């Protein structure tokens, strides 16, 4: 982002200050945040459990942490949990790579041709508004019911966000930086690789971060459409039989997965954008 080409004195310092809490060291700060998060989480769970035990809320409709925990224990013991997580993770990761990374590349590449970008814009937006469920029969007919169809659905769920986000990024590139490259006689490919891509990285990564959630939702929806295992399959079975605790146990697993994927992308980000964290 060219925003940074402006930053100078005081920037790093100010950034540090603005995110630091009462002058703590970054490591202690992180620990504090984790601690507080754990406390918040624990408080919510305890409140929920108490409400369920006291009969303030119906456990049939809202389950309770202990019942969800029972479900997970049982699923863990039978090996189902591990298998479900494996299947869903596989679908999600493959689809994310195809759709998220692929979409980012296409979105950036649209920088090459404003004409193509303008021409395709409404079509892309239109395609992005297709609810996967509505075309479930077509997806099964084209891609079957095995992992391919889930990967396609996950990729489809990611591609538009990544595409539009990275395209927005490529549009934001400072024209003066491009002029600088042109003054060196750079080819369009060089301008693309050395300026457009790195300068759009913040947008690309922001799109990928958004897509972590969408990828998982895509995998779940894909498993709704057809499946024999996976976290979404487990949710579907629970939901078809009105077993809210099974549904919520599945959701919990989904959330844990998202948190893990997020942590991974965050590490990747620090590695891709070292200059932001120097």
């Amino acid at each position: 982002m060219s925003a940074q080409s402006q930053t100078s004195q005081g920037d790093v310092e100010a950034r540090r200050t603005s995110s630091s809490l009462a002058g703590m060291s970054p490591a202690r700060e992180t620990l504090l945040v984790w601690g507080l998060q754990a406390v918040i989480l624990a408080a919510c769970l305890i409140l929920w459990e108490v409400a369920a035990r006291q009969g303030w809320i119906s456990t049939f409709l809202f389950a309770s942490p202990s019942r969800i925990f029972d479900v997970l224990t049982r699923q863990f013991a039978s090996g189902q949990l591990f298998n479900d997580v494996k299947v869903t993770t596989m679908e999600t990761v493959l689809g994310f790579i195809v759709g998220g990374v692929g979409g980012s590349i296409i979105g950036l590449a649209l920088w090459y041709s404003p004409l193509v970008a303008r021409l395709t814009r409404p079509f892309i937006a239109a395609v992005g508004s297709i609810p996967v469920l509505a075309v479930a029969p077509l997806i099964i007919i084209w891609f079957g019911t095995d992992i391919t169809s889930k990967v396609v659905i996950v990729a489809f769920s990611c591609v538009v966000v990544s595409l539009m986000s990275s395209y927005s990024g490529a549009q934001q590139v400072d024209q003066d930086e491009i002029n600088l490259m042109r003054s060196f006689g750079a080819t369009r490919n060089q301008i693309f690789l050395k300026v457009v891509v790195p300068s759009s990285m913040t947008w690309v990564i922001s799109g990928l971060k958004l897509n972590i959630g969408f990828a998982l939702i895509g995998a779940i929806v894909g498993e709704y459409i057809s499946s024999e295992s996976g976290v979404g399959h487990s949710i579907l079975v629970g939901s078809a039989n009105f077993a809210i605790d099974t549904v919520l146990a599945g959701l919990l697993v989904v959330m844990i997965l998202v948190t893990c994927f997020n942590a991974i992308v965050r590490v990747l980000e620090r590695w891709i954008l070292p200059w932001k964290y120097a």
Partner: protein
Amino acid sequence: MQAKLEARNISHSYTSNRNVAEVLRDLNFHADENEFISFVGPSGCGKSTLFNIIAGLLTPTGGEVRIQGETSTGKPHPSLGYVLQKDLLLPWRTIMDNVILGLEVRGVDRKTAVERARPLFEDYNLKGRENDYPSALSGGMRQRAALMRTLVMDPEILLMDEAYKALDYPLKIALESELLETVRRLRKTVIFVTHDIEEAVTLSDRVYVMKARPGQIIKEIKVDLGVESTDVQDRRMAPAFNHYYQLIWKSIAQQSLPAKNRKVA
């Protein structure tokens, strides 16, 4: 002899929304090999616009630029090196990687490029800052890095838009002397923009004075300090210095002032 660079009837207008602003009208000038020419003129008279046109970054609405006799095709000419008015360091590259950017574009491998850039870090007092990101540099340091990025390419024709503006005096003097010496030795051509009359006189062989609204050349002044030395301090002390200083001063003194300040200098 054919001019190294020649501008014929350059005109330019910016169009934004419905407004058309005429910025340059009918500029003609030339620069020969081994010549140092400067443009001075009020802020906003179109100097940076003119440079963008020469560099091939902007297509003028009229006229043409010829480099070594050939009409410029609107693409940057490989023998041109351009130090822009803004430093434009890429924030995601270390200083070293910023400096070798142009070489990288030319396909020079990194090792060779770094070797060519290394001595400049010494000259420009940035040794030890090679691996910093631009955000950790002071204004003058950034300006120097931008200068190095162009000079490391060793271009035949140099366009410099207020290239020394954020440098402290001693360093500026040293770097200017070095530049002059290089120009003489390697028969380069330099086209320079500055607001500093002293700088214009000490460095240039010829000075074009511009006026604004629309930008036009109102005077061409040939500078001959009668000094062979390329040391800027020596040139500053030349007896003829004051004459040229006054000459340029007079031709620009009045025009850029707001109406109420216009008294005779």
